[in-house]
């Protein structure tokens, strides 16, 4: 058996190796064999991740049984860290501070923001301020779950891409980028340090940019990549500020404890949660981190990049923009649970952002005609659901959010790959108005898409049901617990809102499904002879994902395995230990399950009524509710609003700066340049070329010199 540290290093290491190999050899040597390094490496990483999961589970269970008396007092949850090497050290233990140690550390304490109550003796305080960033990997249940999700989906998508991307000019480039992405993403979820997290947070953003703009000769793709990158800059700016604030507050960026200082999410602070900074500092940290998460996970104010990101190849949409990268925000907020638990305001902001996003994206998805865009908005909506789960503020809610992340990865990847299969067969056409009735031509895609749609619509035995139900149940529990609380109205509103969104989800998912696979058979001319089922290399990943979408929810929800496992993560174990948090009865939400299933069935039924066959009601509704339809179809006019609010003023500013530079600054510089010219012109006449004249000048100069010296 491998040592756990070996696994932790190898899981990101293999994709990195593959990225290097394909980058170096792909163009000349591997060519159409470029997929082999990626498949082998990601497959290996997937296998090792599963091994890691089991090992973590075994060791966590062993820790749990080691004796509650000792373990509960000292260890909160299971974690293991391994520092590959120390990347950067900035020692702030200055000589002055060492000499006047006592005095200096006292002033440093008083300089801390109010609310900081990190008790350290004066000798460690100076050391704690020395920045030390290690390439530190960690293994705990949360990381293990994320690793398995990421590598498994990646493996299936990579295999699918062999079929989807064949004959593409950039075949080797694609697999280089995907390997690089898998490396970055596995590092992101393994990082045990906010700085490292930030580095790979940016690295996945870079991979996303490269892959959205993969067909960079198409202007739309290039623009979409740019948009994704720029919108993410806004979020990452907030994230960076959050990190600065964390640093000034806690004096470290590590998750785990080190000899120098207790980590932000380490055992020392978790064992005594009263040490967490409260007040405005906590709220500010949480909101800034949330801004970062909003950018990466496409939440409401910053969600505009994700639909455009569908310009990239479809496997990329499935892997990065549905299953893995966009869930980084959810992962990060879950990881920072102890910080969020301190600030109730921040939690409610998370809840609100999630709710608004879920509802808005679902409303937009109702009328979109582009199959991939429907799925993109449903991704945004489901990410909103995850944020609702995180914002509920109870442990079941947070775990449910993570569970939804886990199941969503499977069925959303499935749906995207199915859409990709359709797109592949239709010769690149993805507008649902131009094809239809494909169920006979593409039986495998049809059935697997149906399973994915059922899972997304949250129908009973499928994966989505269990996780979405858990989220709704967590809200309902919160409503009951907070019965006399001040913000019960908010929770109630979110509860009904999330149920309504579930109905919308079911409706638009099946609208897309029926429009694509049912009705009159209709094939665009671009399809040519391609209009048949995709090759086995593409259908097998679909079948595997479909099977996962059927079973994954039920298997992991049974006996609350997922919950128990995940709760051994340090961040979450701490929360369960906290007395102020209602533990919540998890099993007794039969009513909620019935209601949400009913809502989903209504949505499906409505979609079936309207879109199975030619109904006059569709046009009638669209005509009668003209303004609602337009708002939804035009995506709530958010893009034009952003254009008017940000893009145009900034363009104006740029034009003004250009004018200022050209007309004022350049002219000023020109004038400065003309001064020597003018001086030179005034004495130019002396340069006569006559040697006697020069000799005379020299003699006169000599005379003047002598005159000065003599006098």
């Amino acid at each position, binding site marked *: 058996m491998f040592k756990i540290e070996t696994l932790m290093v190898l899981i990101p290491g293999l994709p990195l190796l593959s990225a290097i190999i394909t980058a170096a050899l792909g163009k000349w040597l591997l060519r159409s064999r470029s997929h082999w390094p990626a498949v082998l490496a990601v497959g290996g990483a997937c296998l090792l991740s599963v091994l890691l999961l089991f090992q973590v589970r075994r060791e966590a269970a062993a820790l749990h049984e080691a004796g509650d008396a000792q373990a509960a007092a000292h260890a909160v949850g299971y974690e293991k860290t391994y520092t590959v090497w120390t990347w950067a050290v900035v020692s702030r233990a200055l000589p002055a501070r060492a000499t006047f140690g006592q005095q200096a550390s006292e002033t440093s304490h008083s300089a801390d923001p109010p609310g900081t109550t990190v008790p350290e003796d004066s000798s460690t305080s100076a050391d704690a301020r020395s920045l030390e960033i290690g390439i530190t990997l960690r293994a705990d249940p949360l990381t293990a779950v994320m690793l398995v999700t990421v590598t498994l989906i990646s493996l299936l998508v990579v295999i699918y891409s062999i079929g989807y991307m064949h004959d593409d000019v950039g075949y080797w480039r694609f697999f280089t980028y995907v390997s690089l992405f898998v490396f970055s993403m596995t590092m992101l979820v393994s990082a045990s340090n906010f700085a490292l997290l930030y580095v790979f947070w940016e690295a996945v953003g870079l991979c996303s940019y490269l892959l959205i703009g993969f067909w960079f000769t198409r202007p739309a793709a290039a623009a979409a990549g740019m948009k994704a990158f720029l919108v993410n800059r806004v979020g990452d700016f907030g994230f960076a500020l959050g990190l600065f604030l964390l640093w000034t507050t806690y004096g470290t960026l590590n998750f785990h404890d080190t000899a120098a200082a207790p980590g932000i999410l380490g055992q020392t602070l978790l064992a005594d949660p009263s040490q967490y900074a409260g007040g405005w500092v906590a709220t500010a940290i949480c909101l800034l981190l949330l801004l970062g998460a909003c950018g990466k996970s496409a939440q409401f104010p910053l969600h505009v990049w994700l639909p455009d990101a569908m310009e990239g190849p479809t496997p990329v949409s499935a892997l990065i923009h549905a299953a893995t990268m966009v869930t980084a925000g959810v992962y990060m907020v879950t990881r920072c649970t102890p910080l969020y638990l301190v600030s109730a305001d921040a939690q409610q902001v998370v809840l609100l952002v999630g709710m608004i996003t879920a509802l808005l994206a679902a409303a937009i998805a109702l009328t979109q005609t582009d199959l991939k865009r429907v799925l993109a908005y449903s991704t945004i909506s489901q990410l909103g659901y995850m944020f609702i789960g995180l914002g509920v503020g109870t442990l079941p809610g947070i775990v449910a959010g993570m569970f939804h992340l886990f199941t969503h990865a499977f069925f959303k990847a499935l749906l995207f790959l199915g859409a990709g299969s359709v797109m592949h067969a239709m010769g690149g056409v993805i507008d649902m108005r131009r094809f239809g009735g494909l169920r006979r031509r593409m039986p495998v895609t049809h059935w697997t898409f149906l399973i994915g749609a059922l899972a997304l619509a949250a129908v009973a035995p499928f994966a989505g049901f269990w996780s979405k139900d858990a989220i709704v149940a967590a809200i309902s529990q919160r409503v009951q617990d907070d019965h006399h609380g001040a913000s019960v109205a908010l929770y109630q509103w979110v509860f009904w809102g999330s149920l309504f969104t579930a109905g919308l989800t079911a409706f638009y998912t099946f609208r897309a499904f029926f429009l694509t696979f049912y009705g009159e058979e209709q094939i665009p001319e671009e399809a040519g002879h391609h209009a048949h089922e995709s090759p086995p290399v593409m259908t097998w990943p679909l079948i595997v994902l479909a099977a996962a979408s059927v079973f994954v929810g039920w298997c992991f929800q049974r006996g609350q395995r997922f919950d128990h496992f995940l709760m051994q993560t340090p961040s979450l174990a701490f929360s369960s230990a906290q007395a102020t948090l209602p533990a919540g009865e998890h099993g007794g939400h039969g009513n909620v399950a019935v209601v949400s299933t009913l809502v989903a069935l209504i949505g499906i039924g409505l979609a079936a009524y309207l879109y199975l066959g030619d109904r006059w009601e569709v046009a009638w509704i669209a005509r009668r509710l003209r303004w609602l339809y337009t708002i939804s179809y035009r995506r709530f006019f958010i893009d034009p609003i952003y254009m008017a609010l940000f893009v145009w003023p900034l363009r104006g500013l740029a034009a003004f700066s250009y004018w200022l530079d050209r007309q004022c600054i350049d002219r000023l510089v020109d004038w400065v340049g003309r001064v020597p010219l003018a001086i030179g012109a005034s004495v130019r*006449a002396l*340069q*006569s*070329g*006559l*040697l*006697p004249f020069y000799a005379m000048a020299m003699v006169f100069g000599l005379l003047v010199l002598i005159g000065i010296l003599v006098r």
Partner: protein
Amino acid sequence: MDELALLHGYQTVGAMLVGIGIVGFLARRNMIVMFLSLEMMLQGISVTLVSWSRFHNDWGGQVLTVFIITVAACEAAIALALVLMLFRRAGGLDVLFWQQLRESNVEPFIEHELPEPPAEPADRWPHLPPAGIEPQTEEEWHRSHV
């Protein structure tokens, strides 16, 4: 003999040599004569140096003079070669043939009142007028080019 009086004498000779050299350099336009004036200045300096050296009983000035003589010899070789080349190009020894290195917008210096040059410049060699005799024919031909 009085050392100081001796120094005075030598200094006077040196100063006169330099002064004559300067005047010669400024007043004449014949390149060879200008060059000779230059040499005269050098000799004046050398005399001064040697006399000071003797007066202070220090070898420095004499050593420097030896250097000056050496350098002057080299300079003479190069300068005469250059003058020869310039003469061949311009057909004359007047320094005012060579005023091309002026600013482009400065008018060239031309003495208009002099007669026109002959049609065909004969291939003559430059030569110094005999000592003590005023140059006559050659001078006119040279100046006609200015």
